[in-house]
């Protein structure tokens, strides 16, 4: 009898160990985030304060500097960078827009960048729902456009993306470490 109880206890322990290994995903090291243009569109929407129609949304993951040299270090100059982490960085246009004179039809796209010391080449690519830039396919590029690098006053621990209003539309500002670039989007 004692033996049976002990054996039962053993099996129970074994079973507990099994369920302790949850198959649900842990929290990402580089948390995801999203930004809309117009800024804070979702909040404005529930407050009935929308004045301008929805134009764009970016969904990206936010790696952190954690003491590392970022540009020219972690992000190598001249190579395609996924401009994020984990799932590929996604930009969605809710209406047709123009980037660098080229019409971009409404829809979802993936964003990449080739980073250099004084300029970045921003890439808008058609291959959506993919992971990082590991299988980046230049044949699916919609546009490549070069933007100058600006030094920012603050040191950013986490990669950040936000839209800023301009006279001809908006800029997608991409900033990390002590560097920022602005991608002009016209509509």
């Amino acid at each position, binding site marked *: 009898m004692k033996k049976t109880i002990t054996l039962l206890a053993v099996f129970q322990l074994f079973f507990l160990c099994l369920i302790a290994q949850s198959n*649900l995903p842990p929290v990402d090291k580089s948390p995801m985030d999203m930004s809309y243009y117009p800024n804070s569109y979702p909040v404005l929407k529930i407050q009935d304060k929308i004045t301008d129609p929805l134009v764009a949304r970016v969904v990206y993951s936010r790696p952190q500097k954690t003491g590392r040299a970022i540009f020219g270090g972690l992000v190598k100059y001249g190579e395609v960078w996924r401009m994020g982490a984990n799932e590929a960085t996604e930009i969605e246009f809710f209406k047709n827009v123009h980037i660098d004179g080229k019409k971009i039809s409404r829809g979802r796209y993936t964003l990449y960048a080739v980073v250099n010391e004084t300029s970045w080449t921003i890439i808008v690519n058609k291959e959506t729902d993919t992971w990082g830039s590991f299988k980046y396919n230049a044949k699916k590029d919609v546009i490549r456009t070069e933007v100058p690098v600006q030094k920012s006053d603050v040191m950013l621990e986490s990669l950040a993306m936000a839209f800023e209003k301009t006279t001809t539309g908006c800029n997608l500002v991409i900033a990390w470490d002590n560097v920022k670039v602005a991608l002009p989007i016209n509509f």
Partner: protein
Amino acid sequence: MRILVSSLIILLLSACDNKSGQEKTTGQETGKRDTIAITNPENNINPYVQVDVSPMDMSYYPADYPKLKMAKSTNAPPLARVIYSRPHLQGRQLFHDVLKYGEPWRLGANEATELDFYTNTRIQDKNIKAGRYILYCIPEADKWTIVLNSNIDSWGLEPDPSKDIARFVVPVKQTNNLLEFFTIVFQQAAGNAELVMAWGHVEARLPLSF
């Protein structure tokens, strides 16, 4: 025999210790990371966008679709995707300090939780057209009402029931594990899929067929 049994127990206990130890470390690490963001705001000065206390996350069906696509092990388009933010308990009790039975809950945090169907989908007895929806829920002790709503690109705080598309009642299961971060994933189930929503000691599953 007794020696065998005792050594088995010791072996299993140590195995169990290792696993739970590892899990704890992971939990502490994630918790720590988040706490840093909250308690040391000087580490998180970001004039563009602050890092959220409840980080956003994304799940696809088929699970890990972006990785499958990258590995070229699928040519088919994805079937579904959810984008949600992950509040965490931080010592609070889920159905005491955070949520109330019978009151709508946004199933996430910040931006409304978004469910994208890339193809027409059948949920319980209803046909749901491919497209983008938001999700919220009305939790009860033994069942959750999961609501599919069309007020997309909105903020989760105030769901607008006039834009409800469909409501589905699903049972709630109690879990042994305490899940610190709210979690939504798709899992394969009997030829179909389930949208699994879990937090604290509860788990609800919404069956989907594509």
